[in-house]
């Protein structure tokens, strides 16, 4: 094992027997089989490979994101690394003290108070009693639950439990931290704390393996990402590239803008949109559209006859149907003398698509700019905007934060007495 590596994994595989649980649990079944004779062949069971031939090494201090679809084997990998379950074949070498956080608040007991659960949970996560005592006040403060600390947690809301559990976890001091999707839960405030704590870990030089579906967080926190697909390591490399590849695999399933929806289309039909392409600024087909990227919308049409002074309009809607903005050649002061007959296209280029990630709708229409004639209208495509780190924030931007994100800069005048707040990182104040 190389001295600089925290984790080395060699051709790791894990298989499960399908139906094995149900079959062997009943003692009676086993006895019946024994009576029938030991020579009878056991029923053939189907093997499912949760992980297959995975190899990688993680240098000390690297923060690695693990991405992949649900059921791809990410959690199984973390469970094997945490020694919860054993691999079917392959080898793992881990150097250093491992703490794994597959769930927030593992081992919390309903009947115990917040205080008691801090001790219990800390100890289950591998903290020493004296470490828990040393950090106790900081944990309570971090959780923001000091007034409830002597209340049994069965009276806690799920959000309070989460905060308490995360407060304990944030004070772990392992060499290697293994974190499953914990950022997906909780409200915006909680997620903010999580990210801040993860940022603190990164700067603390710890080795972190971190499963998440929050691509912005992975891109920001991790220098490297692993993409696990159907139990195999599909891609390993720079976080940005791996995320692109991963999101691209989704896009090929159901690509934004691929399907022009024409039900309910109106207009007289002299001009019809035939298809719409969503391209990146250099004109290549873009499998995914990330927040903050440039976008080119290419509208193909067929004109049945020669028409004068057409105007093309693109309107952007939220998934709730609110009009966000309208762009049209007429509004832009552009005059198109005529088009057709035959096929052609027009392009709309958007400099930066500053949309909060989510699903949007684009509708297209073409009409005469000189007469009240609408040739085609109400044809739609949907537009999936994926998260990105374009804004330099690891916060998961989502619909809670509105619809658009303006590129922005903040200025906070420095105050002498606050020049070096000790709990800066924990509070996430920057």
């Amino acid at each position, binding site marked *: *094992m190389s001295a600089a590596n925290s984790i080395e994994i060699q051709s790791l*595989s894990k*298989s*499960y027997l399908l139906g*094995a*649980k149900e079959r*062997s*649990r*009943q*003692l*009676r079944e086993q006895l019946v089989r024994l009576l029938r004779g030991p020579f009878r062949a056991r029923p053939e069971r*189907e*093997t*499912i*490979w949760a992980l*297959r*031939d995975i190899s990688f090494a993680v240098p000390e201090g690297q923060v690695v994101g693990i991405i992949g679809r649900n059921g791809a084997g990410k959690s199984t990998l973390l*469970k094997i690394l*945490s*020694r*919860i*379950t*054993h*691999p*079917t*074949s*392959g*080898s*793992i*070498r*881990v*150097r*250093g*003290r*491992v703490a*794994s956080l*597959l*769930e927030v608040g*593992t*081992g919390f*007991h309903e*009947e*115990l108070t917040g205080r*008691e659960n801090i*001790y*219990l949970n800390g*100890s*289950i*996560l*591998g903290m*020493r*009693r004296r470490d828990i005592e040393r950090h106790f006040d900081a944990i309570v403060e971090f959780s923001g639950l000091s007034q409830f600390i002597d209340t*049994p947690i069965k009276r806690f809301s799920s959000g309070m439990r989460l905060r308490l559990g995360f407060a304990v976890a944030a004070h772990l001091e392992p*060499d290697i931290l293994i974190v499953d999707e914990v950022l997906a839960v909780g409200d915006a405030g909680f997620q903010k704390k999580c990210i801040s704590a993860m940022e603190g870990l990164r700067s603390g030089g710890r080795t972190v393996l971190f499963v998440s579906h929050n691509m912005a967080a992975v891109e920001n926190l991790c220098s490297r990402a692993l993409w696990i697909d*159907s*139990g195999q390591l599909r891609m390993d490399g720079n976080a940005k590239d791996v995320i692109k590849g991963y999101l691209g695999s989704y896009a090929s399933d159901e690509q934004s803008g691929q399907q022009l929806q024409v039900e309910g289309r109106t207009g007289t039909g002299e001009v019809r949109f035939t298809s719409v392409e969503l391209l990146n600024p250099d004109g290549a087909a873009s499998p995914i559209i990330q927040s903050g990227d440039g976008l080119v919308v290419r509208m193909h049409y067929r004109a049945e006859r020669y028409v004068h002074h057409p105007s093309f309009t693109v309107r952007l809607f939220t998934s709730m149907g609110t009009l966000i903005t309208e762009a049209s050649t007429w509004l832009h002061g552009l005059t198109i003398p005529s088009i057709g007959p035959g096929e052609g296209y027009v392009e709309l280029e958007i400099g930066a698509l500053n949309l909060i990630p989510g699903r949007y709708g684009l509708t297209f229409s073409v009409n005469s700019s000189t007469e009240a004639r609408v040739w085609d209208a109400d044809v739609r495509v949907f537009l999936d905007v994926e998260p990105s780190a374009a804004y330099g924030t690891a916060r998961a931007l989502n619909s809670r934060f509105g619809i658009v994100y303006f590129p922005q800069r903040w200025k906070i005048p420095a105050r002498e007495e606050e020049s070096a707040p000790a709990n800066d990182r924990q509070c996430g104040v920057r």
Partner: protein
Amino acid sequence: MRDASPAYRETPRVSVVSPMRSPALDDHVQSHGVLHELRTYRELLFFLAWRDVKVRYRQTLLGVLWAVIQPLFTMAVFTILFGRLANLPSDGVPRPIFYFSALLPWLYISNTVSSASMSLVSNSNLLTKIYFPRIMLPAAVALSGLLDFLVGSVLLVGFFVYYSIPLGWGLLLWPALVIQMTVLALAIGMFLAALNVQYRDVKYAVPFAIQLWLFVTPVIYPTSMVPERFQRLLALNPAGGLIEAFRHALVPSAPMRWDLLGISAITTVLGFFAALVFFKKTERAFADII
């Protein structure tokens, strides 16, 4: 996906290497001897036992009094039923003491065995989310039960004062007997706990088996009541010689039966190691099949 490729059939190797940077890293040293793990995770053991104790009497009116009520009322029933009505002999020991001194270890063993056998399954959320030596769960049950045993023992001292029986030298044997009792309960408890992960039949079998076990253990009768040639056979029951010794250590009304205690001690130790091997062998798959 179906596969039988031989490349995947090799034995897995999992090794965890730790540099000598900090003593805390001992947790992941290559050899995971049971004793070594018990030592590094002893704080967790105490925390789990502490949790069991804390939770046991939480939101109860009588609290820790329950630790006394169970043996006390059982003793009262036994004294009336088996002592007065059935007139079973008690080796000349006052009947309350005769029953109570045997009930304390018996209730410890039966309570520990039944809750330890459930300890893995009822903590399945822990087993599937975090690593720690799995043996901690039944071990914590065995440890926390000692508190009830201790509270009961204090009451027993009260009986001695009431009947003004002097406490003899046999009392020195008491700590050794407590250790044997704990080991015995843990052995059976962890074996059943591991079995329960695989076969939930254990849940139904245990209460019933404990009932039957009581009848082959000298709790409601003295061993002297059993024909001489069967006495040693009875001591093969690891609880048999042990409970008889508990009584003799307190009230030396009859000579100490070292042979019976010896037989029980041997079966206890053998049983403990057999249970340990079984537990360690099945432990790897707990998280997958629970």
